[in-house]
């Protein structure tokens, strides 16, 4: 009752949108990729995801109670963090790994900055790079798809880095996810379905994902081959976590620039860093590092792309 009497500044139009509603829609948009992951890698993928989500939600709840803040568990942000973290893990990791990662994501990636809406970095990625630095052994052991005996295999990008020839993987395999990789990043088709939902709902804009993917593709096309302008750009776009990162992690509301111009800069930066790390860095995949580094520059981008208020200089 009392809330209705508060007069606030314009706009006065109400929409049924709220943080919780948007976030649960994002959760729904991630479900296809989860189903694809379970089909491709077996039930383990589901357990890893559940472990990460449970740990993330519990951590959020406990830290929320400790700091006596408004309880923000039910708005779904912790669930998203858990799912995105799990999507960035191989399916055969021991179950404590997603749990530790999720606790770290929520505690260091989010709670220390004051919780919801104040984090500087994408929490799931903070957890992911922490796990990557701590237990590289588990984080880089991938299994072959559709194989119950858990035969290990390299991801296409890792194989490329080691200089192996990749003739048996077609673009269609990459698109459908028939190759080794993290459990949520392999099936491009499912990810695009989810992303389409977010586009239709207008929860994400085209600026970041498209500039990100385009920049990576163009850079790889120019510098990725033996000669200039001969790189396999389609392979680089379809493999690794680029699609997952571009649509679901680089579009995080909190840790990315606010204005369209800022988002374009952000996307181009992510694309350049990803391509540079993939082509010359020590790691086969650079998406998470690229997004984190650009997250760090976000306050700056925001400052220099501020929309001029009419009548000011």
């Amino acid at each position: 009752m009392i809330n209705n009497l508060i007069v606030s500044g314009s706009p006065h139009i109400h929409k049924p949108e709220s943080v919780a509603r948007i976030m649960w829609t994002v959760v729904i948009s991630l479900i296809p990729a989860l189903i694809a992951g379970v089909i491709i890698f077996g039930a383990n993928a589901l357990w890893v995801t559940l472990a990460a989500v449970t740990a993330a939600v519990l951590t959020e709840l406990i830290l929320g109670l400790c700091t006596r803040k408004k309880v923000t568990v039910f708005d779904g942000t912790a669930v998203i963090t858990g799912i995105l973290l799990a999507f960035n893990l191989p399916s055969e990791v021991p179950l404590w790994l997603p749990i530790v990662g999720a606790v770290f994501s929520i505690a260091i990636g989010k709670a220390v900055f004051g919780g919801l809406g104040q984090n500087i970095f994408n929490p799931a990625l903070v957890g992911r790079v922490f796990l990557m630095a701590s237990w590289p052994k588990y984080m880089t052991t991938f299994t072959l798809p559709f194989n119950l005996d858990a035969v290990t295999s390299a991801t296409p990008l890792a194989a490329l880095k080691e200089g192996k020839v990749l003739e048996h993987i077609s673009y269609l395999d990459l698109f459908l996810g028939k190759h080794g990789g993290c459990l949520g990043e392999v099936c491009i088709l499912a990810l695009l379905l989810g992303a389409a939902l977010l586009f239709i709902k207008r929860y994400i804009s085209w600026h970041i994902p498209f500039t990100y993917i385009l920049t990576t593709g163009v850079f790889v096309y120019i510098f990725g081959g033996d000669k200039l302008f001969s790189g396999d750009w389609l392979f680089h776009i379809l493999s690794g976590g680029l699609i997952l990162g571009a649509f679901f992690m680089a579009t995080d509301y909190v840790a990315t620039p606010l204005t369209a111009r800022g988002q374009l800069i952000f996307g181009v930066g992510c694309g350049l860093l990803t391509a540079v790390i993939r082509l010359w860095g020590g790691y086969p995949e650079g998406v998470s590092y690229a997004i984190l580094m650009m997250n760090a520059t976000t306050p700056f981008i925001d400052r220099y792309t501020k929309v001029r208020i009419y009548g000011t200089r």
Partner: protein
Amino acid sequence: MKNLIKEFTKGIIKENPTFVLALGLCPTLAVSVSVANAIGMGIAATFVLLGSSIIISLVRDFIPDRIRIPCYIVIIATFVTIAELCMKAYSPALDRSLGIYVPLIVVNCIVLGRAEAYACKNNLSRSFFDGLGMGVGFTLALILISAIREFLGSGQLLGHTLVKGFEPVFVFGMPSGALLVIGLLLGLFNLLKEKRT
């Protein structure tokens, strides 16, 4: 005598150079990968602190005020060179693992800070105990941080495995782990301080 003991103990808890004064963090973070390194660094820094405190409190009346900082630096650098050469001679392995951080004791803010804030105003015995206390406080803080990092980062303490089946968290052996540990420890100290008041 009681005063002197107080000069000594204040450096360990109440004015702990690392946690309370937040001085000299560069070497603290860099060498705290293992407890052995931390002890070596702590001893070297304590030696330099003690030596420079003694000399500076002895010559404090002869140094013109305007050039006191360069004078302090020369005195400190002399002791650092002594420590560096001794370490090279008697424990080359430690010298290698500490690397450039031994000569960098010269610019350790604790040493110059104590010279400027304490030794140049107080007599020999008080400066001696102040330097000793600060050195011990610095060493203890280093050992605390390095124990946390060595245990989490490699599952060992002083090279002995403590818990079987523990999967080491490699990140604590890395620079980012050091920053994380010191950040959380400083937060913890703030929390304790808040609770007490």
